[in-house]
């Protein structure tokens, strides 16, 4: 199902966390839950039918199940949607108490310290192909073909285990992208878990079909960070009751569109209170594949314009706020860093150089991770918006400082000399003579920076900020018409960036007579 294995990046971050002298968490999840009287559940809501966004709300199988568990425990569950890449990390940093995101239970994952509930869903990997492409019936048929997967998922693992060469496996951020690739004949088949594929194919990919039959079966569980045995015990108790009294079957019937494969429930019933799964990837003890209900014809449910625009406008507003605050802090900090870097006092210019080199030399995504997920381990726990603005500002400031530096250095040295000869000190000369000219001159590169910053804000979706790109992805996963959604997003971005470029042009015109001589 969804992503199971630590990517190299997360391993790197984990070791960073381990190297810090403090414990990774100030409070246990149980303490936090008692304090806030709610359970924060991290999820990547682009995974129908388990979790996806409709009308601005996260809904799905996991959400309904979580609500029932909450009722049993007596504490409400709040779902927070973020990019998969940030989902599991939010447990480690204490930003979330549980993860319900269709996470497969694996031995490797347990060794990493994640604690799983008893399995609550039996799923399996299956193959989607173009209609009538009978060359493909089993995973082994893909050995000499090209297959798409969502990266770091058990679909990828299944292909690798089936002996498909790594360079024949295309890894996409989202399952939908992989399916589009198959549809566009760039790859031959996609491998992913059955419920998600069934649902997505129905809604969005009429030209694709499921091969039928499950290639690898796997168990899905709720995840907590290590040591949260009390929380997991409570969740398990609740799950057992919900499964026993029919509520589980009702939720299953509601969300899983094919007829409930009896073996799924049977598989679950085999599991007793110790939480050990029936089967795991790599174990020999696999459950017989559940049979697959007939896939019905695609639903036609075009979203209305307002259904698309409303959430996008909300997302755009967050994008604008992020951009605004980032520039508000990034520009002054950038100026200060530029002045520090030009300082004749060596240690000061060294500090500024090191800052600029570190920021420029590392990816923005990494910086966002560190601020949101790693800082809590030294007891600096910032909310998502502040983390996002902080990371973006620190990043933008480094680039802006270089723009300022180049701009200041491009001003004729005679200007500073004339100002000094008139009795001005460095500050006064900078403020009234050098910087006003610099600002006029750096307007074009600054506009560039602002526009690319506006677009870079999409990276903060890993810390659960629903800016426009994230909102768009969530919409696209459920709409069945990703093309229309993505084109709309492109237009919204244009609408956001055009005023910036127009303002620049206006100011350049206004200052034209001044820049001569």
């Amino acid at each position, binding site marked *: 199902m969804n992503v199971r294995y630590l990517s190299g990046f997360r391993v790197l971050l984990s070791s960073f966390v381990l190297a810090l002298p403090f414990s990774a968490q100030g409070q246990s999840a149980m303490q936090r839950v008692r304090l806030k009287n709610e359970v924060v559940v991290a999820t990547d809501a682009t995974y129908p039918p388990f979790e996806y966004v409709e009308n601005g709300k996260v809904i799905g199988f996991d959400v309904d199940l979580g609500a029932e568990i909450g009722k049993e425990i007596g504490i409400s569950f709040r779902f927070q949607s973020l990019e998969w890449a940030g989902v599991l990390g939010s447990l480690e940093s204490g930003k979330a108490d549980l993860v319900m995101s269709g996470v497969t239970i694996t031995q490797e994952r347990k060794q990493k310290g994640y604690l799983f509930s008893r399995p609550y869903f039996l799923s399996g990997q299956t193959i989607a192909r173009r209609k009538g492409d009978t060359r493909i019936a089993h995973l082994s048929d893909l050995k000499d073909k090209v297959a798409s997967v969502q990266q770091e998922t058990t679909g990828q693992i299944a292909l690798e285990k089936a002996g498909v060469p790594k360079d024949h496996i295309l890894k996409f951020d989202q399952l939908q992208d992989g399916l589009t690739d198959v549809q566009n004949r760039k790859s031959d088949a996609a491998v992913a878990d059955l419920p998600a594929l069934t649902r997505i194919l129905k809604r969005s990919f009429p030209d694709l079909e499921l091969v039928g039959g499950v290639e690898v079966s796997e168990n899905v569980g709720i995840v907590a960070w290590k040591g949260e045995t009390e929380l997991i015990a409570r969740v398990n108790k609740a799950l057992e009751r919900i499964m026993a009294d029919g509520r589980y079957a009702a939720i299953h019937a509601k969300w899983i569109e094919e007829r409930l494969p009896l073996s799924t429930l049977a598989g679950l019933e085999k599991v007793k209170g110790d939480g050990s799964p029936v089967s795991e990837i790599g174990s020999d003890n696999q459950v017989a594949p559940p049979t697959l209900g007939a896939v019905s014809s695609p639903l036609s449910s075009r979203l209305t314009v307002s259904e698309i625009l409303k959430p996008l406008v909300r997302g755009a507003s967050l994008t604008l706020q992020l951009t605004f605050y980032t520039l508000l802090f990034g520009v002054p900090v950038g100026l200060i860093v530029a002045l520090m870097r030009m300082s004749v006092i060596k240690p000061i210019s060294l500090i500024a150089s090191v800052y600029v080199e570190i920021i420029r030399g590392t990816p923005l995504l990494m910086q966002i991770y560190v601020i949101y997920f790693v800082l809590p381990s030294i007891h600096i726990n910032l909310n998502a918006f502040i983390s996002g603005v902080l990371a973006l500002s620190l990043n933008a400031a480094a680039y802006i400082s270089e723009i300022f530096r180049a701009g200041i250095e491009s001003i004729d040295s005679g200007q500073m*000399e004339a100002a000094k*000869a008139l009795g001005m000190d460095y500050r006064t000369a900078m403020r009234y003579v050098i910087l006003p*000219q610099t600002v006029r001159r750096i307007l074009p590169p600054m506009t560039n920076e602002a526009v690319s910053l506006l677009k870079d804000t999409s990276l903060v979706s890993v810390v659960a900020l629903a800016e426009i790109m994230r909102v768009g992805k969530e919409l696209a996963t459920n709409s069945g018409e990703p093309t229309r959604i993505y084109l709309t997003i492109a237009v919204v971005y244009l609408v956001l960036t055009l005023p910036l470029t127009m303002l620049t042009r206006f100011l350049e015109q206004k200052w034209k*007579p*001044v820049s001569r001589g």
Partner: protein
Amino acid sequence: MQFPSLSPSDSALDSVLSVQDLRKSFGSNEVLKGINLNVKEGEVIAMIGASGSGKSTLLRCINRLETPTSGEIRYRNQPVSNDNVTKLRREIGMVFQRFHLFPHLTVLQNLTLAPLKVLHKTQTEMHTRAMELLERVQLAEKANAFPGELSGGQQQRVAIARALALSPSVLLFDEPTSALDPELVGEVLGVMRDLASEGRTMIVATHEMGFAREAAHRVIFLHAGQIHEEGTPSQVLENPQQPRTREFLARVLNR
């Protein structure tokens, strides 16, 4: 006016400006090799010499746009140092070869900026004063123009007015007409002649021998970083004693 040439030690006390054994090197290149100079109140000194003889460097050392390698500069008997130079620069104005007007400010703002920010004068006070100065350089009608809209000669006149706005005691001119088209030189020299005749203390690095002859009290010939010859304009320009001076004058006058 005649200024008898005195030895430095005698005249240093009543000088506005005195330079003692000033040396300046850029890397291994020694540009000034021990300059001694005393400037009296109201004195106009024309400094001549070939390019690279050190004229500019001497002027820039006086108001510390360059830091001297060794030697001392005194303004009204007070040593000029990095600590007090910002204050002293209000007293020692400078006009540059390439004007260096502030292109983002109007002519009027160019004149008022430093008095407003450095002397903390009021806007109305400075406006009146700036307009007076612009009248004097005959550019009152350009008060609201930007420097980029003016000719070179007009720009240099604005630059002179800008230097005057702080009411300095001494004015340093670093080849003020060298960047001008020949037909624009006259208007700038006219303004400078007026200033000289008003008794303002001026040190002018120049290639304009006519100005040196008519407006200066003393002419200094700089050669290879040293004062090679000095005296009244008639002494230096009409009856030079040193072969180097004669060579230089022959070159500039016959061009």
